[in-house]
């Protein structure tokens, strides 16, 4: 592990940065969406539900291409954002974060939604009779009781984001130092004649991160059940 090259380090750190930003930005949105799906019935709910899970079943290259069409330099939204707000996603690390956020969103939302569904609505009713407004019910009852699920969703989302490849490389390409994550670095390395050793180092690191994330997610899920029993 001591002979990790500067380029590999750059890819590792970039991957972590991309995944952290993607997870942190997705989480509040994910909590809101999960709450809506778990607790509200509204017109078009099945459509929203389907759109959220779409990145899980679509080929990642398709998701990446759609992002490119929408948010690329000449994309429908991308051109407007660049011109009026100066926000550019194409070929930037922020674009990688966006692609990872979209790809990991279904994995992030699902445990949060399940844990919100598991919160006893009778407790929410009790707290409303004690004077809690719907927002306070959410903040003091629903969210704290669903917190282990939120953390589990964040861990899974992070793990997915750090390993994302197809959508990212399609949307923002594979530029060392800007958009080259661990996955795209491995991809480049195994196409290089002497890249095998470096590629296997990065592979080991990916496996390590994934295993840690799954263990952490399992631990949070166990905490959830303990918390609901209130001992």
């Amino acid at each position, binding site marked *: 592990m001591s002979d990790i090259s500067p380029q590999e380090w750059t890819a590792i750190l970039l991957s972590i940065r991309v995944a952290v930003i993607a997870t942190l930005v997705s989480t509040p949105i994910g909590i809101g969406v999960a709450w809506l799906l778990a607790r509200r019935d509204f017109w078009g709910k099945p459509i929203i539900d389907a759109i959220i899970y779409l990145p899980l079943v679509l080929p990642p290259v398709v998701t990446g291409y759609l992002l490119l069409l929408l948010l690329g330099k000449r994309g429908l939204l991308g051109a407007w954002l660049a011109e009026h707000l100066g926000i550019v996603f194409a070929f930037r690390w922020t674009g990688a974060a966006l692609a990872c956020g979209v790809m990991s969103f279904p994995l992030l939302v699902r445990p949060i939604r399940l844990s919100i569904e598991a919160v*006893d609505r*009778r*407790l929410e*009713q*009790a*707290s*409303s*009779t*004690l*004077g*809690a*407004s*719907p927002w*306070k*019910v959410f903040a*003091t*009852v629903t969210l*704290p*009781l669903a917190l282990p699920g939120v953390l589990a969703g964040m861990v899974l989302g992070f793990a997915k984001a750090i390993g994302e490849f197809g959508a990212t490389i399609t949307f923002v390409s594979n530029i060392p130092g800007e958009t080259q994550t661990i996955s795209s670095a491995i991809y480049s390395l195994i196409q290089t004649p002497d890249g095998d050793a470096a590629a296997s180092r990065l592979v080991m690191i990916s496996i390590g991160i994934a295993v840690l994330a799954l263990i952490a997610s399992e631990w949070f899920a166990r905490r959830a059940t303990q*918390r*609901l*029993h*209130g*001992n």
Partner: protein
Amino acid sequence: MVRAPRDATAARKLIVLRVDVFKQLGEFSVDVAFTSEGRVTGLFGSSGAGKTSLVSMIAGLVQPDRGVIAVDSDVLYDGSAHIHVPPHRRRIGYVFQDARLLPHLSVAQNLDYGRRMNRLTRDPTEETRITEMLDIGHLLDRRPGGLSGGERQRVALGRALLSQPRLLLLDEPMGALDEERKAEILPYLKRLRDAGDVPMVFVSHDADEMRQLATQVVMLKRGRVTAFGGTEILPRIIPAA
């Protein structure tokens, strides 16, 4: 929030509870009208009489199809005027059959919850008075998960009282308890009634409990009122020899 001083004269607070509601629930319907001024209004009937549906409507957790619910001159629900005050603004305490303590909070935090949500100032004398009245002072640091059924119910009672409701709904507060535990709760409810700081609606299917607590009784059967009056309207039970 301005509160009347707690002295002997204030300790006989009465309110007028006016209920006139209709609600269709599948094949069953609740169609109930009564006006009560008692210190403890009993809702008496066998299971399936619509007692819990009715208290849920008074609390605002279930919205009637039509009708009126008012506490004194304060209209909480009026179908024709499209008034439906949400539960958190009704100031009606609710003690559920299954206590419903918040499992992630300690007993002390559960007791303090209503005060925090209503942004009331802390009143240590009142807290002490209620924890002593209900004998729950020794439980304050515990989590609800480790409490017995009777302890849980007393904490739920204290929690509702400390949110300073103008009316307290007790929905079979002893329903989930065995005979021994019931005997453990009943004296506290009597104590609460006699302290008289909050009028109550007491729901039960047990005529004996009802006789011991209620000052007025609404008899319900299949969602309709069959009798209204004092405890003398309750069915007589021949005491076991």
